[in-house]
Each structure stands twice: as structure tokens, then as C-alpha cells.
């Protein structure tokens, strides 16, 4: 027969790991016991995780005695008094908890057949035994009716205790300590005990303590009596609590008047003679009103905040009353609990609805089955803190919110604030408590009573459904917030995919692009409060709200210069903007799992931003936010310098955008520095002792310094004159300072302003974000005031590294009315991201000097789209163009600023007038994608092209954004068409965003005819070839097409180490519909007419079946360079010419044909005498045929006289004469036809002519 192993408790304690054991699956069999020693080898898994139970490989049972803890041992485990009994054998004593409890077990030796053991504290010899199945060791156990509890040692004492009670146990309080004063002796002491409420019967028999054992129907348990079990009977609490609902006898009680505060209670108090016995013959249910209090049973799915919050069945939240006394060793995830007598609230918070079950002093809380996986034992060790007391003073829903907030605060700010700062201590309140007490409405607070009074005064438990707690908002961890926003975005996509909006694609050059979507969601829709530090991201340079869980991009229109990165801000009123292109594919692949659920918050589930195409940011005003935790160092309101207190006044002329230097390496993506360009005024300011600002020297003197007129300047000292200056933070508005006597030399003054570069290191990106182009700032001067020497700060080309408080912002007003502010965006659909400069700061009145400073300002005109178009028409396009630099072409032109609304933007696969060849090769461009931006105002639209990485887009950049583009390049493409290009220094400022409109406004794209005609009046009229006989020799514009080629001379040359070509001469026959004309040109213009810079993809396209393999053949013949990806290989015709000319050095193509239909008799001459390959001839034919089939263009040329044309006689000879071309012109300029513009021009021509 199989034997059962038995080992001592000390073996278990020594093992110090969660262990589970069982004797047999058949409890009726009784195999012989064998004493064994428990060690690691008996475990099924000798090296298991300490986080799970390890089964013992043998059938084992434990033999021991169950009893109450003695008073001495109870101190050891503290709150074990409430729930635990002791289990001891000869070697040790540990806590035990029995599922199928029988009161007779007290004092009896039992065999534990199935059990779990959990060490409470490693190495301290404490543990808890969870008894799942047990039996008495001795078969001769007394029947249940004989069960009684008494203190045997004290039965013979002389204490008089004649009172008794017979009744139904209604509820049992927790064990608590009450400071008492003996009414007779006046002695002070602590009373440890618990209260139990009995419902007694008032019948005569019961009154005489002679209850009959008849049917319960004879007794009516209606009269409530409270029995106070004081030391030493207080240790009976675990048993009495298990007997709720049973009928009991109690003898040996005393009737006492207990006075607590102003309240007095008559109650029965236990004595050492008290005896409790069970009356199992009388069975009664709890009265109806009691059962209304309800019962709840569920499985624990989460335990948070040291057991204060328990999640049950993933939907009910149990709030444990007075957690200090409650920790229950067996309360673990997976355990089944049953609760009776509780409060219930269905709370509607601002962001979610929750079901809350709250325990109170009356609540009965039992473990019905043990957890099998979770082994984390709850142990409460710390003292009750001020926060704990605060939490107990709240009603249930507020209590839940505060506990959730505790979790949020700890989660969010664990890195920057200590536990003490967050949660406070025993005596002092922490941030959570301070914040909560200010945030909660007064009606959630309730008077806090001692356990004694709470129990005695307890009335009915509360039940409320739909409790409105909308004022309680979630202090959301930012990672959860990002998760929620992405979840929203996906749902928006799903909604739209079924609606009209998905079809609203935009087109550009006939190509359709996906629709752009933007949603602006107010904070009320989230029901969340944002909280965190405001910092500038070291890699993107963007402002972010940061907590320990994550970050989110923010836009603060009223960003001050003195914002501290250490301060925690609370943002209640904000707007979340979600924008981006539609997501293709299946949205169901994104699973978020309710990021704002209480479960996710308590469990600290983290979310990472996963949807790359989504631009997500939050806009809020700092004036509407609250500073929660300030650093000890308060920022100064007035400009100051660490060294000398001297400041320069400067105006920001440009901000250089962030450039991603290492786009392919995320590890190196931290930007080292950001830069801004400023003009510095030649004077210094100082703060006087009384807080006023004093200007040292004056402009003219400073100019004199710059002219090295030291002698004159040295006679001047600090000089005061009336004007006022104040910084944003107000408080000080000084009226002091100077009169700037700026006279007619203003122009010279503005030229004399030193241009300096401000450098912002990674840790001061915040200061960069604060800067505004056109804004005024004080810059701390590193030098003292020396009237005889020019300050180094004014030296042109100087640079400053900006540190934390180097810059102070201020506003200057130049109008007489200082109160007049520009109206900001008022449309409900519009969200302001950037306030106007005058709104940003407190107005500073510089009336008396305004004239001087205004004139000093650099010209920083920002064009509207319409004015930009006019400007483009008026510009002399000859100034624009490009300069060859090796294989790359550098565009030339003016840098201008344009503002308007971004109507649409999209990636451009390849722009034929790209600046560099690399863009056309589709290789990853370190500068970003080639994008095309449609910028519009109410009437017109311009297209801006260039390279811009999506990662470097400013916040808010997208369709519907109101943007200012600073330093765009206005240049001409090879076809002489004006265009606006983004450059690496282009800074994009987003003023506001609005909801994306799905349709164009009715007024857009309608030209302002009057202004356009006016601007076109400057264009010379178009001429005709047939009129050339009558014309004087002057430059004329012709609208014409190439008919055929006369001659083409191509020569090889070298630019640097790269092969290149040049076109010394090209002759074409042009046709304008009136006559034919020989035209001559060379190099760039010839290249344009031959479209050599255009993409020759069609040359290699599949249409040309005979040339399908051309790339490979070109590759073999050295005409083409190798690329890894043939499908992406594209280049210009000119590129192949370069390589062809390497072989032939010089190629001359002559047309000896007479017919005009096609280029018939083309003759090719090689300078090297080598024979042309078939492919080379086809390439040349392709070039010439393509040009002959080219579009109409505007040629500007000059009639050549007879002597000039003589040099071409060799080329034109007879054939040209036969073709009927007698006139010759030299082409100076070539441009595409702008049909609209040129049509207006023709109207004028027809009208006038």
C-alpha cells in the first residue's frame, strides 16, 4: 500500500517558496504515515520560479493543530488577527486559512490533505497555509452542537458577568484599537477588540435564557444588540466572522455604558468568563432588510495599491475599507471572494462608467477558493498616512477616483518626484492629496468616524446607480492617451471609408492623390486631464508634454520665454488634433484594448505610437493651465544677466529649421544644434535698482562706435529718456529710458545692425521654440558697459550659444494705441497654433522711439499668395536660372516669404526640373521626399516644391493649415517658368489649422483679372516671323514650334572629373504659323529646346520594343552606368550624350533634306572618325525627333544681320533655302507658353492693334 509522506512545518518554512501538496485524490483512504524530510529534491521542478506554486512529487499531508494566535504572536503578523488562525506542529507555527471552515477545528489536531503554502516574507520564517481539504486526526470529534469558545484559564476568576445574549450573528467588525479611559479609575489605555451585532429574540423564553430547541419559527430575531469583544476574546474574530448568519449563545457578558466623544452606547462587553456556543438546532435566515444589503461573489482579476483596489470579474471594482487592517493573505488574483453587506455605486466618470463595490465596517469578506497561479501575498507594513485618512473621508466614487489618481501620479511622475512628494507622509499631504482635495467638489467629503462609532452609527449600506461624477476626470498617463488617440483615428478611418470623404481625393498634374483628414477633438470628449512637463524633444526639436509613460507633441500659442521645464503643468482645456492621409489596408490589425479603461491605468499598460502616418498633437494655452509643482527657483520677470545685468535688444530675422543629419540611423538622430539669425540693436539695457530699465548709450553713439569714432562716444555716459519697456510677465512697467534721435541716417543705421547667429544646444531647444521671426528679445550681454569700446556682441558674424535664461521675450508696440491687438482666429473650425506677435506678450510701449526702430527693422515682407503671383510676374526672369556645378545644378533666385493656406500636399515621385539628379534616381534622399505643396489664398494658388522629410514637418503642417513659408526660393525652371522651391533653410511657421474641407471654396482658382491684366501690360507683344522683313533689329517674342533641325554640334567637355557635353551651335527651323525661320542658339537654350534635361523614360519604355533591352546594351557599351535597380533607373538624355561624346569627342548632325514632314536626310559626323553604332544613331534620331514633336514655346530672339549669318552658311547652304527659310534669328530666351497669361497678352494685342 502506498504510504503518505508527512513533514514538519519547519521544513516548509526552510524551503521558503510557494509549494502545493496533496495527500490523495481519494480522501477516504487512510494510508500509513511516514515521516519524511522535505527538500528541493521532492519538488516536481527543483528550480522553479518563485512566482508560482511548485507541487510536491509525493503524496503528502500535514499534521498540526489549528488554534487562535496567542497575543504575543499576533503582534508578529499584525492584521492576521482579523482573518487568520494559527497552524502549528512541534516545529513551528504559521498562519492558516481554511476554506471549508468548521468551528470545532479550534484546538484540534487535523490532517491537512490538500494545501498551498506561501512564504510571507522570505527569510523571516513566516508563511501562510491555505487549507483546501482537511480532516480531524481523531475520529472521536464532538458534534457541532457542543462547540463553544471560552477562555479556560479564567473560568474560575471572580469576575461578575451575568449578562447573556442569544441571537443571530448579523455582522462583525474588524479588530481595532480604541484608546479608553476607565470611568472608575481614570486609567488610560488601549482597548483592542471587535464589535459584533446580534439580532436577538424578544420572546419570554429567550429573555430568560431558556431558548427552546424548537423550530425557528418561534423566534423572531429582530432586536439588535452589539457585543464588544475586547481583549483577550478579541482573538476570536476569525471564528465569529465565519459564523455570520448562525444563531449563537453568549454567556459571561457585562453590560457597559461606553462613551465615545459626545455619544454614549449601552452594549454588552466580553469578559474573561465569556463563553460562546453555537445553537445549531435553531436555524434562521437573516431578516429581509438585511438581505437587501446584497451579496457579491466573483473572481479576483486584479489587485492594486496594496490591496486597496480589487478588480473582480474584470468589471467590478472592490474598494477595501481601511486597508491597514484588512490585508488578507489569500486575497490573490484568481481567488474567488464573496462579499456581503457592501455599498454599491454605478459611477459615471467623465471618461468612463464603472461599477464600484465598497466595503465598510459591516462588510463580511470571505475567500471561497484559493488562487492557484498568483503567489503574491499582501502584507501591509507601513503606517496609515495622511493620504490614507484623506481617502477614507471620501464617498465611494470619489475614493475610487483618488485611488486611480494615485496610480496615475505614481505612474506618470515616478521619475521626477519621490514617493513622499507624491503621496505625502503620515503628517503631511503630498501632491496627490493636495491636488485631489482641490479638484473634488465639497459634497464628496464625509465626516470621518472611528471604527467604533462608524460601526455603532452604521445605518443601511448605500446603493446608487448613475452617480454623476463627470467632474472627476482621468489624469491620463500620456502613453495611454496616445493609444486612445490612435484608437480614435482608426475608428474615424473606418467611419470615413464607408462615407463620401474617402472619395475626395485631390489631383495634381492629373494624378490623383489620397484624401487628407483632420479631426480637432475638444478635451471634453476625452474626459481626461493632461499633466506633465513641457520639454523640447532632443531629436525632433518639437515641444512635447512629457511624463514617465510617454510624450505627446504640443502647440502652445502663448508660449512664454520663462517656462520652466521642471514644472508640472495641468492642462484641462485643450484640443487634440488628429490628421494624416487615410490608412490603407485592414484596420482590424490595430488592437488597442481600451487604453483609458481603469484596468489599463491600474495595470500600467503601456502603449507605443504605432500608426506612422498619423500626426497627433495637442493645442492648449498656458494661461488656461495650472502649474502644479514649481521648482524652487522662480524665473525672473525682468531681463537680467548673470554677469553684468546688461542686455541687448535684438529682433529675430530667421529661424533655421531642424535638419536631420542622420536620417537612416535612428540612434544618431539626436540633433546637435538649432540656429536662428538675429539683428542686434547697437545699445544696451540695464535694470536699475528700482526695477526700471535704463538704456546705456544711444543708437547714434553706438553707430559711432561701429565707425570707430571712440573719442566722441567716450564723452557720453548712461543716458535716460522717456519711453517704457516691460516684459511679458508684467509687474514692472518702467517709464524711463531714452530718446532715440534717429534722423535721416536711418538707412545707414539699419545697414549697421549686426547680424548674429544664435545657437541652441540640445538642452535649450525650448528657447528655440519660443523664438518668433520678427519678435523682439533681450539677450544677456557677456560684457560690461564700456563706452570706449564696441561690444563684441555687435561684431558682425558673431554667434551666441543660447543657454537657459539668455533670452527674454518682449513685445514692442509702435502704434499710439497700445491696447489695440490683432484679432486672432475666431472661426469655430479654426484652431490657432501661433498667436500674433502683438497678442503674445504684454504690449510694450515704445512710442517715442517707434519711428526710429521701425525704420531699423529689416525688410521682412511676407507675401500673400496673390501678391506672390504678382511678384513672380514682375520679376526679371533673366536673373533666375541655374548654375552648373558638376553634375548638380544650383538654382538661383530670390528668397521670399509667402503665407497662405495649405490646400494640399503630396509626394512628387520625380520632378523634371529637379535640382539634383539624385532625386530622379529614386534612391533614398537624405534630405527627404520631394513634395509638392499647394498654397492658396481666397483667390489663387501657387505650388511649392522641394525636399522635405516628413519627420521634419512642423507640427500642424497639413491640408487646411495656415502657413508662412520663410525663405522660399523664387526661381525659374529650365523652361523659364517661375517656380517656388523649398530650400534647406526654409522655415515653415504654422499659424492655425482648420477642419479639412472636402470641396474647394467657390471663389478659389478664380483669377483677379484686373490685377493680372495690369501686371501683363509690361510684357512685350508677340511677333510674327512673317513680319521680320519689316522689323528693326530688336528683341522680339515669338510663339512657335520646331519644325525640323538644320544643324546640331555637340562637343564633349569635362566638368571636374565628370564627363559633360556642350552645344556650341544648334540650328532649327521654327514655324509660328505665319512663316518659317532659321533660328540659332547654343548651350543651355539648345539643351532646353532639345529637351536634353527631360526624362528619357519613354526612350526605354516598353513601347519601344526594339529598344527594350537598351539599358543593358548601353551598359555594355559604357553608355550607361550601373544601377542596382533597373526598374528605378531613370536619367536624362543629356546623361547618355555625355557618355556618347566620350567616344566621339564631337558630333555634328546636318539636315540635308528638303521635305518638312520628317527629318529625312540627317547626316552624322564623328569628330573621332569612329563609326556610330546603331544605338547611338537611334539616340540622336530620338533626340531630334522628340524636339520636332515638341510643344509650342515662346522664343525671345534677335534678328541676325547678313554678316552674322555668314558663319552659318556652311550649315544652311542650299537645303535651308529650299525649305524657304530666309530669315535668321538668334534665340536669347525660351519659355513655356503660359496659355492664360499669353492669351491675355494676345487680347491686349488684338485690342490695341
Amino acid at each position, binding site marked *: 500500500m502506498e504510504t503518505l509522506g508527512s513533514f514538519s512545518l519547519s521544513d516548509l518554512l526552510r524551503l521558503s517558496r510557494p509549494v502545493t501538496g496533496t495527500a490523495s485524490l481519494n480522501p477516504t483512504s487512510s494510508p500509513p504515515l511516514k515521516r519524511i524530510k522535505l527538500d528541493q529534491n521532492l519538488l516536481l521542478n527543483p528550480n522553479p520560479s518563485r512566482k508560482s506554486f511548485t507541487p510536491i512529487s509525493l503524496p503528502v499531508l500535514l499534521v498540526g493543530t489549528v488554534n487562535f494566535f496567542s497575543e504575543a504572536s499576533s503582534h508578529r503578523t499584525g492584521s492576521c488577527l482579523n482573518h487568520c488562525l494559527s497552524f502549528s506542529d512541534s516545529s513551528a507555527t504559521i498562519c492558516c486559512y481554511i476554506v471549508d471552515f468548521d468551528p470545532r477545528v479550534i484546538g484540534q489536531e487535523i490532517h491537512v490533505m490538500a494545501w498551498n503554502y506561501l512564504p510571507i516574507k522570505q527569510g523571516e520564517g513566516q508563511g501562510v497555509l491555505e487549507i483546501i481539504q482537511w480532516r480531524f486526526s481523531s475520529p472521536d470529534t464532538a458534534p457541532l452542537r457542543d462547540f463553544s469558545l471560552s477562555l479556560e484559564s479564567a473560568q474560575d476568576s471572580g469576575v461578575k458577568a451575568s449578562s447573556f445574549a442569544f441571537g443571530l450573528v448579523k455582522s462583525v467588525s474588524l479588530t481595532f484599537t480604541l484608546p479608553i479611559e476607565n470611568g472608575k479609575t481614570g486609567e488610560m489605555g488601549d482597548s483592542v477588540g471587535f464589535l459584533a451585532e446580534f439580532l436577538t429574540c424578544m420572546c419570554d423564553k429567550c429573555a430568560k435564557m431558556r431558548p427552546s430547541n424548537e423550530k425557528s419559527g418561534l423566534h423572531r430575531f429582530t432586536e439588535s444588540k452589539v457585543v464588544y469583544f475586547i481583549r483577550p476574546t478579541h482573538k476570536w474574530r476569525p471564528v465569529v466572522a465565519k459564523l455570520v448568519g448562525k444563531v449563537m449563545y453568549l454567556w459571561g457578558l457585562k453590560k457597559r455604558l461606553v462613551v465615545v466623544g459626545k455619544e454614549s452606547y449601552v452594549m454588552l462587553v466580553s469578559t474573561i468568563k465569556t463563553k460562546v456556543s453555537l445553537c445549531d438546532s435553531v436555524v434562521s435566515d437573516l431578516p429581509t432588510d438585511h438581505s437587501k444589503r446584497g451579496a457579491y461573489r466573483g473572481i479576483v482579476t486584479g489587485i492594486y495599491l496594496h490591496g486597496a483596489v480589487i478588480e473582480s470579474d474584470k468589471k467590478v471594482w472592490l474598494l477595501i475599507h481601511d486597508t491597514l487592517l484588512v490585508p488578507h493573505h489569500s486575497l490573490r488574483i484568481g481567488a474567488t471572494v464573496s462579499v456581503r453587506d457592501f455599498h454599491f455605486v454605478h459611477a459615471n466618470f467623465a471618461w468612463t462608467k464603472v461599477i464600484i463595490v465598497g466595503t465598510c465596517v459591516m462588510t463580511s469578506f470571505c475567500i471561497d477558493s484559493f488562487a492557484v497561479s498568483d503567489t503574491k501575498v499582501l502584507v501591509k507594513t507601513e503606517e496609515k498616512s495622511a493620504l490614507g485618512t484623506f481617502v477614507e473621508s471620501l464617498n465611494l466614487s470619489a475614493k475610487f477616483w483618488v485611488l486611480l489618481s494615485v496610480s496615475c501620479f505614481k505612474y506618470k511622475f515616478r521619475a521626477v518626484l519621490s514617493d513622499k512628494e507624491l503621496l505625502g507622509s503620515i503628517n503631511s499631504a503630498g501632491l496627490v492629496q493636495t491636488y485631489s482635495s482641490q479638484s473634488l467638489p465639497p459634497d464628496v467629503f464625509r465626516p470621518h468616524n472611528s471604527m467604533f462609532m462608524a460601526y455603532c452609527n452604521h445605518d443601511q449600506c448605500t446603493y446608487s446607480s448613475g452617480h454623476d461624477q463627470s467632474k472627476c476626470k482621468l489624469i491620463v498617463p500620456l502613453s495611454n492617451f496616445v493609444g486612445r488617440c490612435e484608437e480614435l483615428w482608426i475608428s474615424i478611418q473606418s467611419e470615413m471609408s464607408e462615407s463620401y470623404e474617402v472619395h475626395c481625393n485631390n489631383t495634381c*498634374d*492629373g494624378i490623383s492623390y489620397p484624401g487628407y483628414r483632420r479631426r480637432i477633438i475638444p478635451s471634453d470628449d476625452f474626459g481626461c486631464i493632461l499633466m506633465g512637463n513641457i520639454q523640447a524633444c532632443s531629436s525632433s526639436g518639437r515641444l512635447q508634454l512629457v511624463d514617465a509613460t510617454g510624450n505627446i507633441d504640443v502647440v502652445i500659442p502663448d508660449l512664454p520665454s520663462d517656462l520652466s521645464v521642471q514644472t508640472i503643468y495641468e492642462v484641462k482645456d485643450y484640443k487634440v488634433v488628429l490628421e494624416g492621409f487615410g490608412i490603407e489596408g485592414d484596420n482590424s490589425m490595430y488592437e488597442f484594448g481600451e487604453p483609458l479603461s481603469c484596468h489599463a491605468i491600474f495595470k500600467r499598460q503601456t502603449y507605443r505610437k504605432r500608426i506612422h502616418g498619423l500626426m497627433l498633437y495637442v493645442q492648449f494655452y498656458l494661461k488656461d493651465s495650472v502649474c502644479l509643482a514649481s521648482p524652487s527657483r522662480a524665473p525672473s520677470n525682468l531681463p537680467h544677466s548673470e554677469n553684468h545685468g546688461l542686455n541687448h535688444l535684438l529682433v529675430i530675422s530667421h529661424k533655421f529649421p531642424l535638419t536631420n543629419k542622420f536620417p537612416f540611423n535612428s540612434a544618431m538622430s539626436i540633433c546637435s544644434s538649432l540656429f536662428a539669425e538675429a539683428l542686434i540693436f547697437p545699445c544696451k539695457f540695464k535694470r536699475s535698482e528700482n526695477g526700471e530699465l535704463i538704456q546705456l548709450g544711444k543708437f547714434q553713439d553706438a553707430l559711432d562706435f561701429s565707425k570707430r569714432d571712440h573719442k566722441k562716444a567716450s564723452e557720453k555716459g548712461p543716458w535716460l529718456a522717456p519711453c517704457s519697456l516691460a516684459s511679458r510677465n508684467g509687474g514692472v512697467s518702467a517709464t524711463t529710458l531714452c530718446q532715440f534721435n534717429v534722423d535721416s541716417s536711418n538707412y545707414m543705421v539699419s545697414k549697421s545692425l549686426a547680424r548674429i547667429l544664435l545657437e541652441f544646444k540640445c538642452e535649450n531647444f525650448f528657447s528655440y521654440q519660443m523664438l518668433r521671426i520678427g519678435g523682439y528679445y533681450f539677450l544677456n550681454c557677456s560684457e560690461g558697459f564700456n563706452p570706449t569700446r564696441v561690444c563684441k556682441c555687435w561684431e558682425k558674424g558673431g554667434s551666441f550659444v543660447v543657454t537657459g535664461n539668455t533670452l527674454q521675450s518682449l513685445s514692442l508696440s509702435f502704434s499710439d494705441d497700445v491696447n489695440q491687438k490683432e484679432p486672432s482666429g475666431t472661426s469655430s473650425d479654426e484652431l490657432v497654433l501661433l498667436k500674433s506677435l502683438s497678442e503674445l506678450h504684454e504690449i510694450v510701449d515704445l512710442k517715442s522711439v517707434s519711428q526710429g526702430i521701425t525704420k531699423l527693422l529689416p525688410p521682412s515682407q511676407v507675401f500673400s499668395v496673390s501678391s506672390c503671383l504678382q511678384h513672380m510676374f514682375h520679376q526679371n526672369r533673366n536673373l533666375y536660372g541655374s548654375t552648373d556645378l558638376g553634375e548638380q545644378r544650383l538654382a538661383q533666385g530670390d528668397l521670399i516669404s509667402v503665407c497662405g493656406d495649405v490646400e494640399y500636399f503630396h509626394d512628387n515621385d520625380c520632378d523634371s526640373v529637379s535640382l539634383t539628379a539624385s532625386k530622379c534616381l529614386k534612391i533614398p534622399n537624405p534630405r527627404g521626399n520631394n513634395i509638392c505643396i499647394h498654397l492658396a489664398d481666397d483667390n489663387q494658388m501657387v505650388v511649392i516644391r522641394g525636399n522635405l522629410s516628413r519627420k521634419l514637418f512642423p507640427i500642424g503642417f497639413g491640408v487646411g493649415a495656415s502657413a508662412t513659408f520663410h525663405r522660399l526660393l523664387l526661381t525659374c525652371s529650365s523652361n523659364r517658368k517661375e517656380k517656388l522651391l523649398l530650400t534647406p533653410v526654409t522655415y515653415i511657421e504654422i499659424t492655425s489649422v482648420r477642419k479639412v474641407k472636402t470641396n474647394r471654396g467657390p471663389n478659389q482658382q478664380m483669377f483677379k483679372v484686373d490685377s493680372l491684366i495690369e501686371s501683363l501690360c509690361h510684357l512685350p507683344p*508677340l511677333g*510674327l*516671323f*512673317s*513680319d521680320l522683313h519689316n522689323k528693326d533689329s530688336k528683341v522680339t517674342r515669338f*510663339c512657335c*514650334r520646331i*519644325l525640323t533641325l538644320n544643324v546640331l554640334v555637340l562637343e564633349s567637355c569635362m566638368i571636374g572629373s565628370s564627363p559633360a557635353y556642350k552645344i556650341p551651335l544648334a540650328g532649327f527651323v521654327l*514655324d*509660328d*504659323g*505665319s*512663316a*518659317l525661320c532659321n533660328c540659332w542658339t547654343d548651350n543651355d537654350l539648345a539643351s532646353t529646346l532639345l529637351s536634353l534635361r527631360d526624362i528619357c523614360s*519613354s526612350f526605354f519604355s516598353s*513601347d*519601344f*520594343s*526594339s*529598344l527594350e533591352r537598351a539599358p543593358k546594351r548601353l551598359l555594355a557599351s559604357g553608355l550607361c552606368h550601373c544601377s542596382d535597380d533597373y526598374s528605378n533607373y531613370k536619367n536624362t538624355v543629356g546623361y547618355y550624350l555625355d557618355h556618347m561624346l566620350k567616344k566621339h569627342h564631337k558630333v555634328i548632325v546636318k539636315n540635308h*533634306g528638303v521635305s*518638312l*514632314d*520628317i*527629318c*529625312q*536626310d*540627317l547626316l552624322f559626323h564623328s569628330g573621332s572618325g569612329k563609326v556610330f553604332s546603331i544605338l547611338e*544613331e537611334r539616340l540622336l*534620331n530620338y533626340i531630334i*525627333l522628340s524636339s*520636332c*514633336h*515638341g*510643344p*509650342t514655346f515662346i522664343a525671345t530672339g534677335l534678328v541676325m544681320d547678313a554678316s552674322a549669318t555668314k558663319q552659318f552658311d556652311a550649315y544652311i547652304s542650299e537645303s535651308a533655302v529650299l*525649305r*524657304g527659310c530666309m530669315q535668321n534669328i538668334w534665340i536669347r530666351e525660351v519659355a513655356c*507658353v503660359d*496659355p*492664360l497669361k*499669353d*492669351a491675355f497678352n*494676345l*487680347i491686349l*494685342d*488684338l485690342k490695341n*492693334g
Partner: protein
Amino acid sequence: MTHAKLLAAELLSVIVHPTSPPSFSLPRRRPSSISRTEILGIVVSLEAKPRFLKFLLDDGTGCVPCILWLNPRLPPSDHDPTPEILRLQARRVRLGEQLRVRGRITVYRGMLQITVGDVLVEKDPNMETFHRLDCLRIAKRCYGLAKDDLG
């Protein structure tokens, strides 16, 4: 020898002289003889055959029949448009497309038509207005069109 820029209505009203091959002249115009033309309009009818493409070009004043031959001349020359280029041109001819067509004026079964030399797609709808104005300008200044005829 030039490609006279004409509106469809003008082209369809040219006087055909029964010479061999036939010659053409514009009524009330100074250079009486024309042989080539350039028109701009929208393709409103299309008939594709293996050897040619026949289409009608509508410029708002009339519809001009055009024929684009897809077979190269015989014997072939290296400098002729390759069949691939011809096919490329043919692919540009699609219903609804705005085309600029150059070619010779010919007569087929008594009907005037253009034997297409090259075809260009004009994306910008404003080009139609520009072309009309250009036709008027040339007619006025070059062909000596009377002021009344300008409308």
C-alpha cells in the same frame, strides 16, 4: 511651307483647286495657297484601323477629319519615325483628349482632311482660348483678314 494656324471653320472653307495633287487657298486671304495646317481641338470621334487612325477634331467652330498613318513609308529610312514613335503618337489620340495636330491638307473622296504629321496632347484647357486668339492674330496680321471677319 508653314503650318497655317486655322480654326476648323476656316479650314473646312478652303477653296480646293483641282490640280494634281490638289492645292488649297483661303478665301479673301493674301497668301492664297496653303498646304499645311495646325489645328487644336477635342477628339470627338475615333476609328482605329491596323494601318491608320481616323479621328474628328472639334474646336468649337467645326469638326475636321484627321488621318494618322501607322505604317512607315516604303522603303524605310533610318530617319523615319519608327513604328514605335507612330504608335506612341496614336496612343495620344483618345476620345475627349485636347490635341494639337499638325499635318498636310489632303482630300479623300472629295472630303477635306488632315494627314497628320504629329500629335501633341494639350493638358491645359486654356490652350484652346490661346489658340483661337493666336489664329485671329495671325489671320489679322499675316493673312490680311478683314476687320469684319474677326467678328
